[in-house]
């Protein structure tokens, strides 16, 4: 039995040549002990898979995700620079950027347990944790609710965000409304409305309820994105698009008159 027994795992893994596999099969047909051995190995492998799967449920420490997200690019290993601490609203804007980049897959790790971490974590760390809580289990789409349900989006996001959400018509700026999603940043719900231009580039309009709306328009660049932000009656707004868009301010101004 020994000569075959040693090959049973490789047999299970499909790592034997046809000839060797045929030998094992022939041996199994006449040797109940070998069959029992094979079954024990299969059970053990199943247990191992289950145990390894269980490990994935362990929440990722926020500090770890933060260290990667905040790593200064290009000089990460050598630079003593600490992760950047973004302020609340800025964090919300950054959250919009991250989602505009290409869906939400990046932060879909961990489990709802992480919201407990979020409560205590400062700044944008809390955002990452909140993403988990909000998006865990949701599918990866550009939008959560499509443009064909615009009325619903307005009602739903208004109720969720705690500030009036209206979908501006930005057709004059060459933008088509694609839909919306709800996210959480700086510990607060954020409404995100997604638009695409004729070339398929995504422009996002995000808003977060606030008691202290900012004055006037401000633009800044984060990574590969430009953003223009302004304050409304009960919310702060930001429009996010690829760096180099010359029309972002115009889009923001057009949106500001409608929201």
């Amino acid at each position: 039995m020994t000569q075959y027994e040693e090959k049973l795992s490789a047999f299970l893994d499909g790592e034997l040549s046809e000839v060797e596999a045929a030998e094992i099969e022939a041996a199994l047909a006449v040797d109940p002990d070998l069959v029992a051995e094979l079954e024990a190995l299969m059970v053990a492998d199943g247990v191992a898979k289950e145990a390894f799967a269980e490990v994935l449920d362990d929440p990722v420490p926020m500090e770890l995700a933060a260290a990667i997200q905040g790593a200064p690019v290009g000089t990460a290993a050598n630079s003593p620079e600490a992760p950047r601490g973004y302020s609340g609203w800025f964090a919300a804007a950054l959250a919009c950027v991250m989602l505009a980049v290409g869906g939400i897959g990046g932060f879909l790790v961990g489990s709802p347990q992480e919201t407990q971490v979020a409560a205590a974590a400062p700044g944008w760390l809390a955002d990452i944790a909140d993403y988990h809580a909000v998006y865990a289990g949701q599918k990866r789409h550009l939008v959560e609710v499509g443009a064909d349900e615009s009325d619903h989006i307005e009602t739903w996001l208004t109720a969720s965000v705690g500030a009036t959400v209206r979908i501006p018509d930005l057709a004059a700026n060459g933008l088509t409304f694609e839909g919306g999603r709800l996210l959480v940043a700086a510990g607060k719900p954020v409404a995100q409305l997604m638009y695409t231009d004729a070339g398929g580039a995504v422009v996002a309009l995000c808003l977060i309820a606030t008691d202290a709306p900012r004055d006037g328009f401000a633009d800044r660049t984060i990574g590969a994105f430009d953003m223009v932000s302004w304050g409304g009656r009960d919310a702060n707004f930001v429009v996010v698009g690829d760096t180099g868009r010359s029309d972002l301010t115009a889009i923001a101004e057009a949106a500001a008159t409608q929201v």
Partner: protein
Amino acid sequence: MLLPRENEIAVCNKAANLARSKQGCVGAVWVVADLKRELIALLPRLRRFARTLTRSVPDADELVQEACLRALTRADQWDRDQPLDRWMFRITRNLWVSEIRKRGVRIGAGVVPADETSELVTVETGEAHVAASDLSRLMATLPSELSSILLAVSVEGYSYAEAAELFDVPVGTVMSRIHRARKALAARLADTEGEAQ
């Protein structure tokens, strides 16, 4: 219009020639942002792999962080046509090998020939291992050089040849370690059943 921050420009210079970069410098920043996002998405699996190497949660997290930062400094080498997980497992494993050489700790990953180690290690109570459930306690009884290869093959889908390359051992060694890992688990399961009866 504001410009990217200085440190972002630094990486632009390094990665500006990336085939997929959009608009030169901006594209390089984009690449790093993408890589960060994908790395964060990969964290659960990287941590799991690292735990089989280090057998300690804090060590594993430190190792994973170091591996991710290493990858980010090499963002210009990131080939999106190749699976990121394989690249990261390799970086993680190589870093760990350097680390245990530094520490002079004679554990796992080819430092001690696996044939010289016992099949089962004793898990002391109170140790900072995963040990949250019966299953993880059971897995913690496997020495690193067995559990890491078992994870790679049974769960992460490595062929024996690919695992041999990752762990820098002959294919025959992969074959025997996989088998010994399963046999050890089977024996432990049989013991547990015996105790329960």
